[in-house]
């Protein structure tokens, strides 16, 4: 038998399907949401925003939600907390710096402890990719992924989507495979270390949008384009801007560079979003940024505060989306 024929004829063990998520209320990845479920989340986000605040607090009155944060966070943590409280939940925050995690308690044991204390759902931010799957497997509780390592940040992708839909589709909540057809979203910057980029790369092509990734090789390896269909790489920032209806800028994640040397001046010359670039190449596009923004690095202050910026809208949309997913979590997957 020659090696070449051997390779052609051999069957190898199959890769089994993943039993995930365990709990129907969990939101571990944007992949967990069918288009129908996605529509429902967006619908509820809008409805909950419009509802009378006092009435709203009766929806999940005194239900217990734990926020478990292994990384610092301003937007995500605060908006999850406000969202849960807006529905009447009692929330408790456990962060790695002021808890027994510092003493070496494992994620499993921390999760079991929170469950024993009565938590009915856990919102987890963790610096290790995949941590929410581990927590869910051991607690069997609904787990909401509030960002895991370099992997996924599903509620960010959802709030980005809501922002895009407001501007480009009159706030439609009816999601189908063509709803964002003709829309090109350029994500620029530190793609390699970005969970926001990965979540958007998973979600947007399912809705018909085209995702263009832009950045230098150190922060955007060629294989990023293999993540899924509808994703391509454009190294020339201005060429990317010219095609875009949405421009999403990312922060360079100094905390994850792991020794990678980067010439920031060089980076700014190639990829900083300036008012001039925006005006020349994408005068109609909306500008998004998951935050925190570093003014003067990935974008100028002028752009951040400018008329095309939807950055603060994204933050408000965060509360709306997070109300919907907290409600879904505590209603066993029904939003």
């Amino acid at each position, binding site marked *: 038998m020659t090696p070449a024929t051997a390779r052609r004829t051999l069957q190898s063990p199959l890769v089994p399907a993943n039993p995930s998520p365990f709990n129907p209320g969990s939101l571990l990845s944007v992949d967990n949401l069918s288009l129908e479920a996605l529509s429902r989340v967006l619908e509820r986000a809008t409805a909950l925003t419009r509802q009378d605040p006092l009435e709203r607090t009766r929806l999940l009155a005194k239900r217990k939600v734990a926020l478990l944060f292994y990384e610092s966070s301003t937007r995500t943590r605060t908006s999850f907390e406000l969202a849960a409280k807006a529905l009447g939940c009692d929330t408790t925050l456990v962060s790695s710096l002021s808890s027994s995690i510092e003493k070496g308690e494992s994620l499993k044991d921390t999760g079991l402890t929170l469950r024993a204390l009565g938590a009915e759902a856990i919102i987890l931010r963790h610096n290790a990719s995949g941590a929410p799957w581990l927590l869910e497997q051991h607690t069997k509780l609904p787990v909401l992924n509030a960002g*895991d390592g370099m992997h996924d940040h599903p509620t960010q992708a959802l709030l980005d989507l809501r922002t895009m839909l407001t501007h480009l589709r009159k706030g439609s909540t009816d999601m189908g495979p063509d709803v964002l057809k003709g829309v090109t979203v350029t994500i620029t910057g530190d793609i390699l270390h970005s*969970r926001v980029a*990965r979540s958007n790369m998973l979600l947007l092509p399912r809705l018909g949008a085209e995702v263009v990734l832009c950045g230098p090789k150190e922060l955007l390896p060629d294989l990023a384009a293999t*993540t899924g269909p509808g994703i391509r790489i454009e190294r020339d920032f201005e060429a990317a801007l010219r095609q875009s209806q949405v421009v999403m800028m990312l922060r360079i994640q100094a905390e994850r560079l792991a020794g990678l040397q980067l010439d920031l001046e060089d980076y700014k010359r190639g990829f900083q979003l300036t008012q001039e670039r925006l005006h020349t190449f994408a005068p109609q596009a909306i500008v998004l940024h998951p935050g925190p923004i570093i003014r003067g690095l990935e974008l100028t202050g002028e752009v951040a505060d400018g008329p095309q910026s939807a950055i603060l809208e994204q933050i408000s949309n965060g509360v709306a989306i997070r109300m919907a997913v907290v409600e879904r979590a505590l209603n066993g997957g029904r939003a």
Partner: protein
Amino acid sequence: MSALVIRNGHLIDPAAGVDAPKDILLKDGKVAEIAGPGKLKHPDGAESIDAAGLVVAPGLIDIHVHLREPGQGYKETIASGTAAAAAGGFTAVAAMPNTTPVNDTVDVTRWMQAPERGASVRVFPIAAATRGSKGEAINDFAALKSAGAVAVTDDGHPILKDNIMRETLVAAARVGLSVIQHAEDTRLTHGASMNAGPTAFKLGLRGMPAEAESGLVERDIRLLTELRDSRAHLHVAHTSTAAAIAAVRQARRNGLRVTCEVAPHHFLLTDEHVGLYNTHFKMNPPLRSAADRDAMIEAILDGVVDAIATDHAPHAAHEKEVEFERAPNGITGLETALGLSLFWLHKEWKMPLGRVLSLLSAQPAAVLGLKGRGTLAVGSSADAVVFDPKAEWTYRVAKTKSKSRNTPFDGWPMQGKVQWTICEGRIAYALSS
């Protein structure tokens, strides 16, 4: 010592060129006589095993296991690890030195072989190449060899410095020991927890590039080429990439003394099996791409691979129940190697049974120069495995003899059921009916 007769079995002894029905007399720990069925003179008082319908083969030899003692008995002990080995058909295992303390001394080497350890099968210690496996000062190989060490390696702490590796190859050659290298340029794998590639990118995990393995194999082969007259022997542990196999293949064509082993997980699984951060699929070297996996199969079938070795690496449950990037590397493998090899290599991929068994016995014995092992020729060690080649069964880790359960193969179909494992004339394992 007592005697044992294995009757009515079909003997497959690739090293001796035997593939025929034979009765075998084992006496005083050695193979005493082999004869056609019923032709053996049954010695008085000898115990007897009826191997009708079964294959009798030289006991399997795993040249890459971690028995965790001394120092990490909560993961595995020499007793529990060798019990798992016996259940898997192995009669000898070569134990890696990354224990606590590191096995870099005559004392630890002897301690591991002492009868008090309660080993079910023969343990051949592999000593550390350098003091504390720190890659700086090489150990006294002559002394370690006389204490029983069969090879030297720094295993998980590969020797990166050219001069130290050169010195190790020369010094080991001088006393007739092989040098085993875990080929990983750790300067390229810092913080990485799986194979570099599309799957790692999707999962947001830092990846180990294939070049980290192949680059070090190529470096080692270059050093060996420079030392051509020294009789130095390089053995590449758990080869996992197409490029590393290609380098070994070329070196062999050039007449160098380079051998290599492949683990069952590397000829069966790919990085996609990691799924959603399943730590039972995390080991080092990591599961690679489908192209790399196919290259392992190809190299096994065409004879470049010298041995199937499991890299049995037990870890306690609580150590694996953590975030993927924090989980320790390694999976158990002693109980599944034969069943997987027969299922895939023999049944699915049509490799002759004798060749599969050779990769699990005669050839690994030759790699480490284990005299009188890996064959059932008269006068050799009475190490045999008796198994039903037709039996299909399912591996259940709940029944493992190991102290740990970190296997990716729980629930997998296996081919060939071990009925008896006989080590140095004693029954080390018998399938309870």
